[in-house]
Structures are given as C-alpha cells and as structure tokens.
C-alpha cells in the first residue's frame, strides 16, 4: 500500500517497496503480457509453462497409480475375507472328498498322495484350494 514511510524506515523496507513496484501486477494484463515481460528480462516463460504442464501430468499419473494400487489391494482383502472358508468342522473323510471333487489336485502335482497326508495338512490344502477357486470365480475381469 502506498503511504508515507517514517524516518526510521530501513533500507530493506524501501528496497522491498521498490522491487514490489517494479514487478507489480498490472491490471488487466494477460498471460502473454507477462511472458513478454519475462522474455525481456532474459527468462524463458514457455519453458516454465512446459515444466509445470509436465509436473501436473506426472503428479496426476502418480495419484492415479496410487489409487489403483490401493483399490486393487482393497478388493483382494475384501475377497479374501469373503472367501475364507471355515473347514474346522470337517473330518478327514470329508476333507478328502472335498479335495477330490475340486478338480484342482491333479494340476498341483503333489509329492505326497492325499491319502498319506495328515489331517492338518489336508485341512490346509483344502482351505487353499477353496480360496483359489473362489478367487478365480469372483475376480473382476479387468482393473478399474
């Protein structure tokens, strides 16, 4: 703001005012006016504008990728919660029957035949097969 300085004004205050006046914004000036002024001062406003365009594109892309990663993780966690199967009530015979009917055992190439596995191993394998089957069925066809 314009005003009378007092006699104890410091040089710093005066230089601030002078610089502020010399580079103050002009009412109604356009972007091109500012660019012309900067060019006259030996600066390259187009390079500045291009850098900022690149920055906005980069930050937007980083945010999009971060959002996608978060969304993907949230989907997987939700599916895992939904697909968790409680097999604690099944006995050995029921676990064997469930595994044989799943149709996935042959593809896994197990070293130990199912019949020779302990009940805990059968239960773990059964949970894994059930979870994988459900995931295949419910996974979205593409990323959001």
């Amino acid at each position, binding site marked *: 703001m314009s005003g009378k300085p007092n006699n*104890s004004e410091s*040089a710093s205050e005066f230089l601030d005012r002078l610089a502020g*006046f010399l580079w103050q914004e002009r009412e109604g000036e356009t972007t091109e006016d500012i660019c012309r002024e900067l060019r006259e001062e030996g600066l390259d*406003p187009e390079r*500045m*504008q291009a850098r900022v365009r690149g920055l906005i594109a980069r930050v937007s892309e980083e945010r999009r990728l971060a959002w996608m990663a978060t969304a993907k993780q949230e989907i997987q966690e939700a599916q895992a919660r939904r697909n968790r199967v409680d097999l604690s009530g099944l006995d050995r015979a029921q676990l064997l029957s469930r595994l044989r009917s799943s149709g996935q055992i042959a593809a896994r190439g197990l070293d130990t035949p199912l019949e020779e596995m302990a009940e805990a191993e059968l239960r773990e394998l059964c949970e894994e097969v059930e979870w994988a089957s459900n995931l295949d069925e419910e996974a979205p066809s593409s990323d959001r």
Partner: protein
Amino acid sequence: MDDALFERLNAQDWENLSVRLERHAHWKVQRLGWVTGSGKNPNLPKGISAEDLAYQAIERVLTGTRSWNPGKEPDLFKFLCDVVDSLVSHLVNSEEHKERKNQVNGDFLHDYPDHGDPGDGRGGRGLVSDFQVAEPGHDGGASPAERFFYLAIEALSGDPDLLRVFELCYDGMDKAADIARSMGVPVDQVYRLKEKMRRRLAKLQVVLKEGERV
C-alpha cells in the same frame, strides 16, 4: 491431499499462474542481488534460478508437501508466493544475515541526512538527489545496498520522470495509480516508466557484481 482439493488445484489456469509466480520469484532474486551485490544471479545455492524456485513452490503445493488450505488463504497465487518467499529465505539465510547485520550496525538510510523541509508533507526527509554514498574506508565503505541506492539514483538522474518515480517510491508510494496521480500523468505512462526503470536498474546488477567502488 484429498481428491477434491487436487481437482481444484488441477483446474487452475497454470499457464498463467506459473509465469506470474516466475515473475514473483524473479523479483525476489533481483532484490537479493541489490543487497548482496552478487549480480544478476545472486549465487543461490546449487545454481537455483527464479524458474526453479517457482517450480519447486508449485511442486510442493501439488504434491501436498505444502498444503494449501483455501479456507485460510483463498488466493492460491498469494499462497504460492508465500512458498517462494519461504524457499528464498531458507536458501539465502546467510545472505539475509548479512543484510540484517548491515541494518543493525547502522542502516544507511538511517544515516541519510534529513535536509528536507518539515512542512513539505514528506516528513522532512532528504531528497534522493542529495544522497551521497560512503567512501571506501577502513570499514569497507558502502554496503552493496547503499551502493545500489547510489548507482540507481545516478542511473536515473538523466531522466527527470524516472527520478521522480523513484523519489515517489522512496517517499512511500508503490502503486502505479498513486504515482500517476501525483505526477499528473496517465497510469499507462507510469507503467512505461516502470519498464524503463527496470531496464536501467537491471544494468546495475552487472556493476554490483563486478564490485566497482562508487
């Protein structure tokens, strides 16, 4: 940063904001050159330029390192200027210190003789045309800011209009419209004088950098 704020930032006219901010950073750097005597590029650390300062400020705001709160500061440009100012202040801390030291040990304007007429409405301040710079002496003579002040008066003294604008600014005016009113000229003429003054003062940076004694 939440999506709504980012969208708001993304929707700004960055073609305009970026160059306005570069101009703000530029004058900060130029002004620094006046008081440090280090020329057109006052040796900011790591070769950082006005463009870099403006870019870094925008980057900090867009990535949320400096979070803009529109409720607190609705003017994004003003907020960005504050970020630039804080970057400059941080970068040139030692130079700022030198400047403060100059003031504490006797600001040259405080020593400036008040020959003016107390009844002239200017508070008895001296005229800039009477200003004399300290000769080099055992204390090293004039500070860079004092030398700048003297050189500026010298550079403008050949043009009475320019000197008048400088003097009005010295007397406290910093708005083109006020200066135009005081001089009785159209404001566009003050804008032209301002540009002319800027060009003349820019030439001083080289002299200051070369360390010429006045």
